[in-house]
């Protein structure tokens, strides 16, 4: 892995289309792999009206000079912390796949293999009070934020000890303690929630006068979401009110079987930030150090009250969309290309080449994580399934909402409610 700075995509000069090739812009973009293949399938015509007056980055995210070898981007502790977090994410997801095929979990399970750099790069910079809002691909976001592997695994097994008491499942990981605000099944529906969490933070500072409240919210979502109305509506509101939020696009180029290029008129998502008055940054999402550098700036910007940032991370998922996806549509060459850019191998190489730690120390971390995962599975296996009495417990925060029964008492006072056998 080179020490080069995160690639900050520059605005597209108009004159580059003069040679007539509709594909010329691809040579300038950092997108690699699939676009070359797709060029043959469906050439994409550039929109002639796209005036590139949008500036790709604001002053806040400056082009960094390459650091000298003596001036590394991370310290040893940081390096090991990042490595451990990515290994945790990877091993956990691998174990999920195993458990799924053994019949321990069901339904839709979406794995994060390959995208660990984004989660680790961003979330490891957050404080406990900062919030993370994710989508259905949320196991690793929860783990990075600090939710114990046991709680996540139990939730996947549907046990009562899961982080959402077994009621949410793979797509609804929540943790009040760690400020993980979901876990959403429909794409884009988490983005307004994240905007609301950021609004709370601003409200606390300005209305409730909690002067030190500078909590930041990160909203993670994919490329498919970037064609959805809620995304744009929230970009507008966040920029309008300068909310402390960072919109993190995990562009893995595929929305189940729909290639990003086939679905999007202008595939460069970072450009949509400046259209709303916030900086848009593109970064190599397979490189945790680059992601971390960009994340630092974006999060600090939000903390200072300067408003939102749109960060597009070019990344890739090694597995299918979910465990039910046969993943036949993606080109094996593309998969091989990105497998060669595995963020964990890259970080390992960086750590070893720069003598931050030895191979044994990294192996020790892997062994430790192995044990954490084993323990998580054991814990989940041994945990009880939710009892029937849990069925009606969390429908309402105030169970008076079930109403008044024919006998005049609130229905929640009926013993059948605590048993879970009442019919609502």
């Amino acid at each position, binding site marked *: 892995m080179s020490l080069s700075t995160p690639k900050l995509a520059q605005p597209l000069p108009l004159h580059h289309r003069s040679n007539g090739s509709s594909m010329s812009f691809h040579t300038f973009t950092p997108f690699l792999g699939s676009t070359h293949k797709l060029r043959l399938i469906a050439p994409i015509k550039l929109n002639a009206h796209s005036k590139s007056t949008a500036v790709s980055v604001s002053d806040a995210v400056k082009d960094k000079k390459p650091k000298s070898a003596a001036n590394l981007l991370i310290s040893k502790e940081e390096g090991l912390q990042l490595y451990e977090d990515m290994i945790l994410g990877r091993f956990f997801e691998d174990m999920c796949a195993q458990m799924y095929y053994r019949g321990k979990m069901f339904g839709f399970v979406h794995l994060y293999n390959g995208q660990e750099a984004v989660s680790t790069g961003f979330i490891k910079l957050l404080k406990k009070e900062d919030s993370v809002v994710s989508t259905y691909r949320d196991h690793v976001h929860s783990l990075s934020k600090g939710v114990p592997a046991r709680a996540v695994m139990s939730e996947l097994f549907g046990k009562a000890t899961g982080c959402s008491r077994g009621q949410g499942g793979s797509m609804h990981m929540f943790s009040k303690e760690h400020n993980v605000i979901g876990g959403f099944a429909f794409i884009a529906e988490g983005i*307004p929630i994240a905007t609301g969490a950021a609004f709370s933070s601003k409200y606390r500072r300005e209305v409730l006068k909690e002067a030190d409240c500078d909590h930041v919210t990160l909203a993670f979502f994919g490329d498919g979401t970037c064609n959805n109305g809620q995304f744009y509506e929230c970009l507008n*509101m966040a920029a309008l009110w300068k909310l402390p939020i960072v919109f993190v696009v995990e562009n893995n180029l595929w929305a189940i079987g729909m290639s990003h290029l086939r679905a999007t008129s202008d595939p460069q998502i970072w450009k949509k930030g400046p259209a709303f008055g916030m900086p848009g940054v593109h970064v190599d999402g397979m490189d945790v150090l680059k992601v971390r550098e960009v994340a630092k700036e974006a999060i600090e910007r939000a903390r200072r009250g300067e408003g939102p940032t749109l960060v597009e991370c070019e990344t890739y998922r090694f597995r299918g969309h979910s465990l039910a996806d046969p993943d036949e549509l993606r080109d094996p060459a593309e998969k091989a290309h990105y497998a060669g850019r595995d963020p964990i191998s890259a970080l390992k190489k960086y750590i070893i080449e720069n003598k931050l730690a030895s191979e044994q120390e990294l192996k020790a971390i892997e062994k430790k994580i192995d044990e954490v995962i084993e323990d998580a599975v054991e814990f989940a296996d041994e945990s009880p399934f939710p009892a029937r009495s849990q069925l009606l417990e969390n429908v309402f*925060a105030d169970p008076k909402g079930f109403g008044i029964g024919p*006998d005049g008492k609130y229905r929640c006072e009926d013993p059948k409610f605590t048993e879970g056998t009442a019919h609502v």
Partner: protein
Amino acid sequence: MATLFQGLGLVTPLSSSNSFESNKLLHPSRTCRSISERKDGIFVVRSDARVSQLLKRRARTHDLLVTNAVATQGGSFVASTSKPGHELLLFEALREGLEEEMERDPCVCVMGEDVGHYGGSYKVTKDLATKFGDLRVLDTPIAENSFTGMGIGAAMTGLRPVVEGMNMGFLLLAFNQISNNCGMLHYTSGGQFKIPIVIRGPGGVGRQLGAEHSQRLESYFQSIPGIQMVACSTPYNAKGLMKAAIRSENPVILFEHVLLYNLKERIPDEEYVLSLEEAEMVRPGEHVTILTYSRMRYHVMQAAKTLVNKGYDPEVIDIRSLKPFDLHTIGNSVKKTHRVLIVEECMRTGGIGASLTAAITENFHDYLDAPVVCLSSQDVPTPYAGTLEEWTVVQPPQIVTAVEQLCQ
């Protein structure tokens, strides 16, 4: 302006300059209601006299409506309140309730289109932005799905937003957020996050507003688990329900009606909060139970006059709580009269009346002498022409005919 009682121990005993009988406070149509004993400056008014029981129960379980305030001086039962109350219009009552809650709890905020500088398209939030600031009374862009979601996210992280849909029909755009997030997140998070949001707005058939502005969304939202729905119909219950909805830990959808905003009524000066789950006895009677809500209450009362002249004695109940139904008040009435007529503005198919019919039949079948009759609006997009529009909603003569048929 009403004396505002702060629920947190800043209660001042009412000065008893004029002697006052509690009856003066009672609207003629609410003779069954009695004022409960004052406790900590806030009293809970129920639609019947089961007051002290309720307070005890509430004190035992959830102390929602009666805050843990310092006990008032004296402690003697002050049943008669000395002030006769003040008159206002329904939209002003809503504003009063909202303002009182915003003063009481700084986490209460308002979001919606034109709620701030414009004062609300029906003036419910008039002058609130000047008083509380632009962030607490937030003018949003026209993005219902997203700002409702933003309200839900804010509610999950500690605020108590009141989201206004300029017209209830606009909330159809927010259906994703209301159904998936508002209703479900408390459950799917295993109870970790509560969503104390209030979603309110005017709906119903107005005066030739056209099909899309005349929708009744009660039927669409009623299946969503995890939310409560209430409909206000008088200035008195509008204020009480607004306050109750804001104080509730559950997400509440408060349905107002475009044509009822200018109703005038005299309401108490003292602070009061109504119960979200209870129905309101409008007119006790013996012959038939008429269940209604929102604007149709007035059509029913108009029909009731005719019916009384014809010798009938209808019992009229404003169900107020559309989800969940107050099966106790309704059940007691059915057990007394054995005949039920439901009069609603909702659509015939899958509306509140349809659910209510099912609930009554399920629970009180043995007490019915006749099938439940439900008068709803026609399953027709509300036409613009005034004459056609009139025929889509239930009119008093139809109610009279229905009662006559039911009581044969």
